[in-house]
């Protein structure tokens, strides 16, 4: 591996992979570092995305489509259901495969990828970000780069290390738990949302169908609600009431930063993208497509900035994203 890259991307989620791809497309050298063993796993996501949000970035492929969505069902606290029909307008993804494909598309454009590489600091030169420090196979290492793209998700710390105040106020964090369960007899083309302060205070429960009567079932509550009761408590009561005997295939926790995008997401030598930049729809909590959009812009601007040899060009990111 080279000892210096034009662009280093931290995190191989949808935002990171798009940043890596759009930077590599400009012909600059790109390395994407991911702390986990696998790109795309574990999946901390309900996996819903609009058709428009996905088509822009990758050609549709049945292998990562778990179901096709054409209806919304909204269920009020007293059990009344309102059904809204859209026509085929979205998908439930199989994100493990989807994220993998996104990373592969970055690799196909020339980006290098390294998993199990945990970034734990930044290199600074005259207060300008000039690379990363990371742990790989038990060894502490360093790599220089002209631009670092922080796409390190909800747990992002990259921005803070560069001096930006990027943590999420706990009241604005949607603290989530989700199970993927089987034997869930729901319509496979409908997204179900359950509302009510006893069900999911300040948020909603989602039941998103996947193939073969399995479904992602989860909720998010704000950290403020979490003072009283945890998301897990609500999940357990919901499952007991609605799907008492459903076999659980996966259970995950996760956070969605439900605030507006950070005011500052770029400083000399570094830009943030995706959840790290809080590029999430604060109403729905959806962040896959906005993360891909943010990542693609970050990658393109980083590539341009290097080609033009104009480091300040990356600061235009705040204006376009």
């Amino acid at each position, binding site marked *: 591996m080279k000892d210096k890259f034009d662009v280093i991307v931290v995190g191989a989620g949808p935002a990171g992979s798009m940043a890596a791809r759009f930077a590599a497309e400009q012909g600059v050298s790109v390395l994407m570092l991911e702390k986990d063993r696998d790109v795309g796993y574990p999946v901390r996501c309900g996996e819903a995305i609009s058709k428009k949000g996905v088509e822009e970035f990758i050609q549709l492929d049945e292998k990562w489509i778990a179901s096709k969505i054409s209806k919304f069902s909204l269920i009020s606290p007293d059990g009344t259901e309102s059904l809204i029909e859209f026509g085929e307008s979205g998908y439930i993804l199989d994100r493990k495969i989807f994220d993998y494909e996104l990373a592969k598309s970055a690799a196909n454009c020339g980006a290098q990828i390294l998993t199990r590489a945990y970034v734990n600091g930044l290199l600074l030169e005259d207060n300008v970000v000039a690379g990363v420090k990371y742990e790989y196979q038990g060894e502490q290492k360093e790599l220089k780069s002209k631009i670092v793209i922080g796409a390190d998700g909800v747990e992002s710390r990259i921005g803070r290390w560069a001096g930006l105040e990027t943590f999420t106020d706990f009241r604005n964090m949607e603290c989530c738990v989700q199970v993927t369960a089987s034997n869930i007899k729901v319509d496979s083309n409908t997204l179900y949302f359950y509302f009510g302060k006893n069900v999911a205070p300040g948020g909603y429960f989602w039941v998103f169908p996947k193939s073969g009567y399995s479904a992602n079932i989860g909720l998010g509550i704000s950290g403020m609600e979490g003072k009283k009761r945890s*998301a897990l408590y609500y999940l357990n009561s919901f499952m007991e009431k609605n799907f008492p005997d459903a076999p659980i295939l996966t259970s995950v926790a996760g956070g969605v930063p439900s605030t507006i995008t950070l005011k500052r997401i770029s400083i000399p030598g570094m830009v943030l993208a995706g959840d790290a930049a809080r590029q999430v729809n604060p109403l729905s909590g959806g962040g896959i497509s906005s993360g891909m959009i943010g990542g693609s812009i970050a990658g393109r601007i980083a590539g341009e900035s290097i080609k033009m040899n104009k480091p300040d060009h990356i600061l235009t990111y705040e204006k376009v994203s």
Partner: protein
Amino acid sequence: MYRESRTGKLLIDILPGKCDFCGCCVGICPEDAIELKEAEISIIDHRCTNCAKCIWSCPVEAIKFNKEGILV
């Protein structure tokens, strides 16, 4: 479950058996006091102010107050 407190002042602790390594607490910690690897989590004692925000934000109740600072 025990965990040595390096400063003797740490009042919270993460129960590693319950933690899902999801990063929610890392994202809200105002002091950048939580270190999270793939499946390893720890609190950086000298940064933590025991503000309890991570306790409230953990979706799976994996962080607890610990009045003695050592025994969980």
